[in-house]
Every structure is written in C-alpha cells, then in structure tokens.
C-alpha cells in the first residue's frame, strides 16, 4: 500500500503479537507511514520475517521475542525500542492467547481462561506501565486491541468478551488518568481475515452460513494491513490528537451500537 503521507515520521511504535494477523498488519501500516517499528512476537520465527519485510520496503524495524504476560519480556521490548530507535511514542498491545472453540461458560477450560487473562489483562497492565514513562515524555499513545465482543458479549467464547470488555474499562480510565500527562489511550475492535480466523471460518456457521457477511454492510471481511492498519496509524498519529478513551470498531459496519 503506497502512500505519499507519512503520518508517523520519526515515531517509534511497539506492536505486540505482530508476527502475523492484525498485529502484522498494524506493524506494516505504521512502517509505511514512517514509523520505526518494534515487532514483539512470541516467536522470533514469526516476528523476524515481518521486520525483514518492513526493511525490504525501505522502513526501519527490529524484531524481539516477547511473551506479553512476562514482565521481563515486555520491559525488554520497551528497552529495545528506546535503545534501537531512541524513544518510544506508541505502544500497541494486540497479542492474545488462543480463544479456544465455541463452548458454554461452564465448560471453558481453566487454561483457556487463564491464557486470555494473561495475554489480554496482565499484558495490558505490563505494556501500559512499561511504556508509561516514555509515552509521558513524548506525548505518546497507548492502543489496545479490543473487540465488539467486548461491548456486546460473545455467545461462543464468553471469556473473550470478558477480557476485551475489561480492556475497554481500563482504557477509559487510563485515558482520564493519563490525559493530563499528554498520553492518549484508545481501543480498536477489528474484524479481519487472519490465520486464526481462517481456521475458525472452516467450521463456524458464522462463516459457513454467511451470517457474518450478511450483517456486514461492506460485504467483506477486513484485511489486516489495508483496513485495520490505517486506523491504528490514525490513532497513533497527531490526526487524532484530541481523541482519547474511545473504541473504534473497524468491521465493515457489522456492529452498529449506540
């Protein structure tokens, strides 16, 4: 995706879970707009190629292995951003553990619940607190990847709705608390075709029976880089300088609330 406008020139962005899917899309889009990007992925086998692609396209990137539920790893990712690029301006927390198959709340395995709490909630705390001093110094931005399920609940994966909602409550509060520090905090609720979604799409009636597409006015599932990435760029850029505490649902119009 070529662009003549570089909205993030000189800024440094960390994206967690950027080894694929929405995270990769956001990382590529931020780089396209001039950002230095730190690819924080659970496995360097997935993160390294994304950093390499950014550099192939003429951008600047660094890949670092990062378990987002680990205090040491998250702080190392922040340190890497600062040591490599001199600053940190935007923290994008996107990574999430597998949500598991659709199931009743009573039957969700403990491991699945704890995985989501760890990668959504613990990680949000870690990413926010590790990034805070740098975001404060630079008038930066924290972006949490949430979901429409965090607003309307999920009939299929109830723990997912719980953690995505908790992230929104956190984001609104941090927006209020950190606003005087010049830090903005917002959420994105994306719907995009990722490898994880492709796997679900093989059997879920939401896809096989066209339920999702039928309720999506734009009649397609989003692309991580072309559709979700630009929204993250907008939230990371000065274009959204007067916007904080908000959730942007980027799903082709599938979820229309309030």
């Amino acid at each position, binding site marked *: 995706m070529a662009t003549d406008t570089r909205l993030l020139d000189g800024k440094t962005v960390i994206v967690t879970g950027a080894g694929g899917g929405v995270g990769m899309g956001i990382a590529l889009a931020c780089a396209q707009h001039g950002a230095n990007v730190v690819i924080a992925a659970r496995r360097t086998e997935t993160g390294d190629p994304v950093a390499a692609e950014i550099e192939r396209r003429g951008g600047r990137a660094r890949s670092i292995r990062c378990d987002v539920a680990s205090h040491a790893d998250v702080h190392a990712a922040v340190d890497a951003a600062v040591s490599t690029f001199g600053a940190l301006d935007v923290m994008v927390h996107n990574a999430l553990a597998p949500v598991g198959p659709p199931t009743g709340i*009573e039957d969700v395995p403990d491991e699945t619940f704890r995985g989501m709490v760890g990668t959504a909630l613990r990680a949000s705390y870690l990413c926010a607190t590790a990034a805070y001093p740098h975001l404060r110094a630079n008038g930066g931005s924290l972006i949490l990847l949430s979901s429409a399920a965090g607003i309307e609940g999920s*009939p299929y994966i109830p723990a997912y709705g719980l953690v995505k909602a908790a992230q929104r*409550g956190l984001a*609104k509060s941090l927006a209020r608390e950190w606003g005087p520090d010049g830090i903005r905090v917002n959420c994105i609720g994306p719907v995009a075709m990722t490898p994880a979604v492709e796997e679900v799409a093989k059997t879920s009636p939401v896809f096989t029976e066209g339920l999702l597409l039928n309720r999506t006015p734009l009649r397609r599932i989003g692309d991580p880089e072309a559709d979700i990435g630009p929204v993250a760029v907008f939230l990371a850029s000065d274009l959204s300088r007067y916007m904080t505490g908000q959730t942007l649902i980027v799903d082709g119009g599938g979820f229309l609330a309030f």
Partner: protein
Amino acid sequence: MTTRAGRRVVVTGDTALAEGVAAGLRELGALVVLLDAAYETEDDVRAAMEAAGDALGGGIDQVVHSWVEAALLDARVFAELSEETWAIACEHTLEVAWWTARQASPALRETQGSLVFLVPTIGMAGGAGYAMLAAVAEGMRVLAKGCGRQWGTTGATCNTVAVAPHHWTGDAAGAELTRNITLSVPAFGDQGDAASDLAPLVALLADDDAHFLTAATMVADGGTWMGL
C-alpha cells in the same frame, strides 16, 4: 422467575452495598443468604453456593454478585501499581465473577432464575485512580451479556445493575469520580441507597415481569451517567 415472597437469594460480597441490597431484598420478602466463601479457588465458590442452596431450602432463585477484592476500593496511581496488586485485585476479582457465574449456573437453570452483577458506572465511563475497578466492572458487565446469550433457552437470565461509584469507593472519591462523569448533578439529587433504591431493581430482575429481559444493563445512579 418467582414471586417475591420466599424468593431464595444469594448475595456475594461483604461491603455496605452487599449488606444493604440483602437487607432491602429481605424487606421485600426474600430469603437471603450472604455467600460464605473463601474465594481462593473455584471449588470454594462451588461449595459455598451448594451450602447456600441447602440453607435456602434446596434451591436458588437469584444470585446477586457484588464481591470485589478489597484492594480495588482505594484510589491508586496506575503507573505505580505493582504487578502483584494488579493480579490480586483486578484479575482475581474477575476470576471470582467468572467462577460465580459458572457455579450459579446449575441452580439458576433449574429454577429459571436470575443472576445479577452489581457494578460501578465507572466501568462504562472510566475512572481516574480506579482503573482496576473500572476494568473489573466492564468485564463483569460483558460477562453478564455472554451468560445472558448462552442461558436464554433455559429461561435463566443474567443482567447488570450499574450504580454510582461511591458504593465501592466511599463518598469523597465517589463524588470526584462523578464530577468527571457528568457536568450536571444527578437527576434525583442523590445517587441511591442500597436497601431502598437498589434492592427493588434487583428484585425486579427476578420477577416474572422481567422474564424477557436478559443481558441488559440497568443504570441506577439517580440519573447521573447517561451514556446509553
């Protein structure tokens, strides 16, 4: 759904809010048990819920969940929060809400009963100094929606009553949080008493008249937050 006289209700939590709602429900004719649980494991909650059901004569018509870790009730600078505090206060409180929904489910499905989460409105509005409480509130509110969706065919309902934050934070902090929520004073001039103002709404959610209401949020803060 049941009539109010003799309705069998379990209330979780040990704050003035929980005790006030319990007292109000008793005034309305309900048999009310405050859940006696250690809240350290899901088995604690399961055993306590079974014991509560036995104490109520063998069934539960409504569970009102208001329990939170005490560490959530104080204002804290988020950037100075320790990871341990975050885990104990925020994550564990959500974990207990999750356990409560799972362990209340069998009894409520049997009676086509009602699960109600009591949360502060700052979950929807945000609260500086109370980020953990807001995250918990919003997580519980949307957990309620997931339960409502999943339990619908059984006749059991799951709803949220969102109330003014002072019920958790105390009057001074609550007033400050409210000032940041709205530029106007509450429509009713105050933000509600647990026994006389909130308990009737909780009772309503288990009435037959509310049998078609699930996954909903009723904001009962005297007309303060009006974001819906």
